[in-house]
């Protein structure tokens, strides 16, 4: 009983202390309000145009915008810098962040803080959108992050996380940045249901980030797709990699990845669906590869990967590789180019399928031969090789090709 009374009193004490401070558009209005506020207060920013910059939120504040008040950094400065734990920033539009080569300027920057919530904001024409620096357990959700970067050099990333742990990045809409979402040394985090499209470089860029999960995201029309590098225990499922179409574009680029899972994703109309380089123990299961230039490019440096139960439909090349060494397993996939038979009607073809076509072997060795793409000669060579395989890596084969599309 004593305890309950104590809690009630404590609650009353806190609620009595927490004030709601209304902020209107006056010069340095937000600055002054933050200075006056105490831990636990709420800043209610009224609709208006605030020409302010470098607002440091160093108290546990809840900053709420009413009808998206605009904070404009005049293309010179940063807007909000959060250094306090458990701060909340919600419903604000931040725009025109500066661009220098010395500091990475960001719309909302979180520095050495825990449990910060950034949600329902609009970040327009910024160098970096949300920048998380040594942050823990932060929640970035429902933000619209848009910019118009033209090249990789001057642009920043939509959501940039460096040395963070346990983040949740959810339902954001990111476009026109250098990388949509950038992770470097970020662990135990989740990226869920974001849309990252038309970014100059990658839709999502992972470096040295272990034990992260990303699911249900859509990566579309990015300059080079999605890159996941030097990480382990990455889980990717139910994502869509769409139309990352260009000379050097990938749906998903994997470099030095180990013990990861890629499941139930859609790779549609990418130059290369998945490019794997020096990966170990990566499971690629039940994905759809459709209308890609190359569905998968698996370099000979990859080992211990299982490619099982995927559908390969309408790709120019199903699999390409650069050597004869095959240390990966391709089984139980559906290949639309498979023309074998199934006498015992168990839905598994009776002759193996060789997913590496002879022309893809040749182009991999000598790229200039691409000039013969779609010529009659290559078709003839394909047919000859089918009857009498000599050039293709015969160990790379699917011994149990499915006759019908796998249910994904």
């Amino acid at each position, binding site marked *: 009983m004593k305890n309950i009374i104590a809690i009630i009193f404590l609650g009353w004490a806190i609620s009595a202390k927490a004030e709601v401070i209304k902020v209107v558009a006056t010069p340095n209005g937000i600055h002054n309000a933050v200075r006056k506020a105490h831990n636990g207060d709420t800043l209610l920013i009224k609709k208006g145009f605030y020409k302010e910059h470098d607002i440091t939120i160093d108290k546990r504040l809840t900053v709420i915008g009413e009808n998206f008040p605009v904070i404009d950094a005049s293309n010179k400065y940063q807007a909000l810098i959060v250094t306090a734990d458990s701060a909340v920033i919600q419903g604000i539009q931040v725009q025109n962040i500066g661009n220098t080569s010395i500091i990475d300027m960001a719309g909302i920057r979180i520095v050495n803080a825990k449990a910060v919530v950034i949600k329902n904001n609009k970040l327009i024409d910024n160098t970096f959108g949300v920048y998380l620096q040594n942050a823990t357990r932060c929640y970035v959700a429902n933000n619209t992050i848009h910019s118009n970067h033209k090249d990789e050099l001057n642009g920043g990333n939509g959501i940039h996380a460096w040395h963070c742990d346990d983040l949740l990045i959810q339902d954001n809409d990111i476009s026109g940045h250098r990388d949509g979402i950038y992770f470097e040394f970020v662990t135990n985090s989740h990226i869920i249901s974001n849309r990252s499209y038309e970014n100059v470089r990658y839709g999502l860029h992972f470096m040295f980030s272990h034990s992260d999960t990303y699911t249900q995201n859509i990566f579309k029309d990015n300059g080079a797709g999605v890159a996941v590098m030097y990480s382990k225990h990455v889980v990717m499922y139910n994502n869509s990699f769409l139309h990352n179409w260009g000379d*050097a574009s990938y749906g998903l680029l994997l470099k030095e990845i180990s013990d990861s899972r890629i499941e139930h994703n859609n790779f549609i109309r990418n130059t290369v669906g998945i490019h794997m380089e020096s990966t170990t123990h990566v499971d690629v299961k039940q994905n759809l590869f459709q209308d890609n*230039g190359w569905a998968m490019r698996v370099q000979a440096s990859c080992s211990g990967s299982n490619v099982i139960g995927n559908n390969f439909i309408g790709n120019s090349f199903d699999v390409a590789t650069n050597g004869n060494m095959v240390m990966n397993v391709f089984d139980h996939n559906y290949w639309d180019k498979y023309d074998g038979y199934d006498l015992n009607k168990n839905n598994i073809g009776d002759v193996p399928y060789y997913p590496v076509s002879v022309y893809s072997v040749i182009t991999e060795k000598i*790229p*200039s031969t*691409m*000039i*013969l793409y779609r010529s009659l000669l290559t078709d003839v060579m394909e047919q000859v090789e089918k009857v009498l395989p000599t050039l293709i890596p015969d160990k790379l084969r699917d011994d149990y090709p499915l006759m019908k599309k796998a249910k994904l």
Partner: protein
Amino acid sequence: MRTIIKYVLLDLIKNKTVLVYTFILAALSVSVLATGSNTSKGLLSLLNITLLFVPIISMLFATIYFFNSVEFIELLLAQPIKRKTMLLAEYSGVAFALSIAYLIGVGIPVCLFSYDLASLTLILSGLFLTLIFSALALVIFVLFKDKTKGIGAAIITALFFTLLFDGLLLSFIFSFSDYPIDQPLLGLISLNPVDLARILVLLKLDVAVMMGYSGALFKKFMGSATGSIYTIFCMSFWVIIPLLMSAKVFKRKDL
């Protein structure tokens, strides 16, 4: 000249082979374009059809037709007509008929189902291939006296350009892959109108990135306006030179 063309055309209409050719092309185009949801894919299939059928059919049909009209030609030459005029009129009649067949068979369906730059390029290159291979047929006609030999030569020439040339090109690339061969390769490609047509159309389609991926130079040069003009220039040469050559040979030919 105009009268001769008129009679050649009338004869070709009676012949019905051109009609069947038109009909087959039309059937193929409509089935390819109407069934597929993806017009880019449909165009790719049509490109394959164009690159395979147009050279072989134009070549064979024109050769056979020229050889079959030897008597008509001899009769005409008894009249006060220049040999060159007569030969070019014969050629124009056949090439015109085959071009119309291609235009109706492939051009109209393509324009109905997907009218864009890529399909226009496809039609243009198909027409060029028709003109080029009819001209080559004319060369064979003036070079050979025997019909059987002529048809044999026509088959070999058509196969050479559709298949053997690429094989030689591939072995060339293989043997010299240690050297920077991209530019010589561009030159070599100009020696085969079928390859020129293929690359011209491919670079207008979105599969062009596949070529750009490994051979950026092809895309950079052939994909540019200069490249397109160069390609069309080369193909025009492929029409003009065989025509001039056959006219020259025919002038002194003992009929």
